[in-house]
């Protein structure tokens, strides 16, 4: 699952579909030439708006699905228009062009032996839908935990359900207010369901920082493996600018080998864009991440 750093390309992508996805989210299908290497679940793409653009830097987006045809590939993205860049993106219509740089970073290590337990919080569902697809493609099924504050924030629940049923994933829902599924936090749901899953469990999580932190604590306590998709403000997305450090845990600092390619970071910090965005939870110093 470690992408060769030199595998990324930059292409002009065409918006093939751009639709509402419920609860202020948008689904974006980008058509890219086939020379754009196939992304793996958990990898991301840097999207640059067309000129004249109200923002300077490209915006990182996780790939939420891929379909390939002969001469082109379609990448799906699920995003929330939260700021200037994503709002400007959301105004672009079918046929508009954006620049896509990728695929970037390391995705979820789905090949790890054990039962894949995918844990999504809110819009963190995006790369995990893609992960469920990929697992199904390998003939493996997954447990899929999806949590949010309230029912409405289970973003694109219908679509998730449809895709998971195709992927033969089992969907478990949690809402803080109990408006749908289990009442409580998705990690509480994990605590309750875990004994029923086939050990060893391999957790793959994406969602708000607090949720990922809780997953990491849970995994450490239960000796489970946890892989978490992190975010950071980014510049280049390719390891060049050194702009996206995440502090390593004491354990990771001790284990750090001076032979690690410099693109991936140093003893103190890992780069989110190259060594991540998916990290083994124990490698990060959660106290120093916000």
């Amino acid at each position: 699952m470690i992408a060769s750093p030199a595998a990324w390309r930059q292409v002009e992508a065409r918006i093939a579909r751009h639709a509402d996805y419920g609860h202020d989210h948008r689904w974006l299908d980008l058509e890219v030439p086939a020379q754009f290497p196939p992304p793996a679940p958990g990898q991301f793409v840097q999207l640059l708006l067309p000129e004249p653009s109200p923002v300077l830097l490209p915006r990182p987006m996780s790939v939420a699905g891929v379909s390939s045809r002969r001469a082109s590939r379609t990448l799906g993205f699920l995003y929330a228009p939260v700021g200037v860049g994503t709002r400007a993106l959301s105004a672009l219509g079918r046929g508009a062009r954006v620049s896509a740089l990728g695929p970037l970073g390391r995705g979820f290590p789905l090949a790890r032996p054990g039962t894949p337990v995918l844990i999504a919080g809110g819009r963190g569902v995006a790369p995990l839908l893609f992960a469920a697809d990929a697992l199904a493609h390998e003939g493996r099924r997954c447990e899929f935990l999806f949590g949010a504050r309230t029912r409405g924030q289970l973003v694109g629940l219908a679509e998730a359900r449809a895709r998971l049923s195709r992927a033969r994933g089992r969907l478990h829902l949690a809402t803080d207010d109990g408006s749908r599924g289990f009442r409580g936090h998705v990690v509480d749901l994990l605590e309750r369901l875990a004994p029923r899953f086939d050990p060893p469990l391999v957790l793959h999580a994406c969602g708000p920082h607090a949720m990922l932190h809780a997953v990491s604590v849970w995994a450490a306590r239960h000796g489970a493996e946890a892989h978490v998709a992190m975010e950071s403000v980014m510049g280049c997305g390719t390891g060049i600018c050194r702009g996206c450090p995440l502090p390593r845990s004491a354990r990771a600092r001790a284990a750090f080998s001076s032979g690690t390619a410099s693109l991936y970071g140093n003893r103190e910090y890992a780069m989110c864009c190259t060594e991540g965005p998916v990290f083994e939870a124990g490698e990060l110093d959660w106290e120093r991440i916000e």
Partner: protein
Amino acid sequence: MRARAAIDLTVRIGPLRLANPVLTASGTFGYGDEAAHLVDPARLGGVVTKTVTLKPRAGNPPQRIAETAGGMLNSIGLENVGLERFRLEKVPRLAALRATIVASIGGETPRELERILEALGAEPSIAGFEINFSCPNVARGGARYWAMPRRLERTLARLRPLTRAALIAKLSPDVTSIGDLAIACEQGGADAITAVNTFVGMAVDLARMRSRLGRATGGLSGPAIKPLALARCAEAAAAVGIPVIGSGGISSGRDALEFIAVGAAAIQVGTASFLRSRAALDVLDEMTALLIARGVKRLGEWRGALRADAPPVRRRASPRPARPAAARRGVVARVSSAR
């Protein structure tokens, strides 16, 4: 490729002859090989590598980047692998690129720079050294420390004997007179000036009531600073006889031509490479096409060619003969008194 045969784009930087005036800016193109599958570094005038320091540096705490209107603040803090690893691991890879390599080096004291040059000064794969006298993001040995003409002059005089490669002094824009600093560098023995590094800036996260960066301040780069960098580049070029390499907000062939028109001998592409990996090559190709379309045969015809009727920018022949420092100071005085 054919297009470029029609025009002489070569640039002399001290002992160095660049095939064309487009370089990558330090810290924005790694060690030259990261994007080599998309940008052949050998097509560029040169690759300036990430600043290397005596000891490895882990860099500043997150966040290290904050976007602002038309620009980005960075607070990388000179994260780099350090001299030893650079020499053992990066230098051989740089050699393999068959490109013109300019190694950026940084130090907290003149002595540190000496030690780096003692180690690297004779590396055959390094065609030049850019000395980063201008990092806004380090606690010691940063832009403020080096913003003293005498310190610059003396330091360069100590470094000069340590290498036959080109010595380029990269200056900060955050000074009262970049012309004075450029003159000091020239007198200390620099072969060229790079003008400019990033501008010190700040951004506040009001929700958390603290800096949007891990440190209080960062360095601003990108289109927002282009007009400022252009003015400082023009001032430096008017002050010295050695070539000045422009840096700051360059993202198109037109931008490159603006810098060269006000007197730059070459230019660097920085932040633009984060937006488009091929930015440096695109700048080169667009610049070349524009020059050819205007019937320019030699890059030198364009350099400093900005019309003089808008005082005080002077028309100037190129390549310029070295002038005595006193005469040059006269020029600076003219330019600055006209501000």
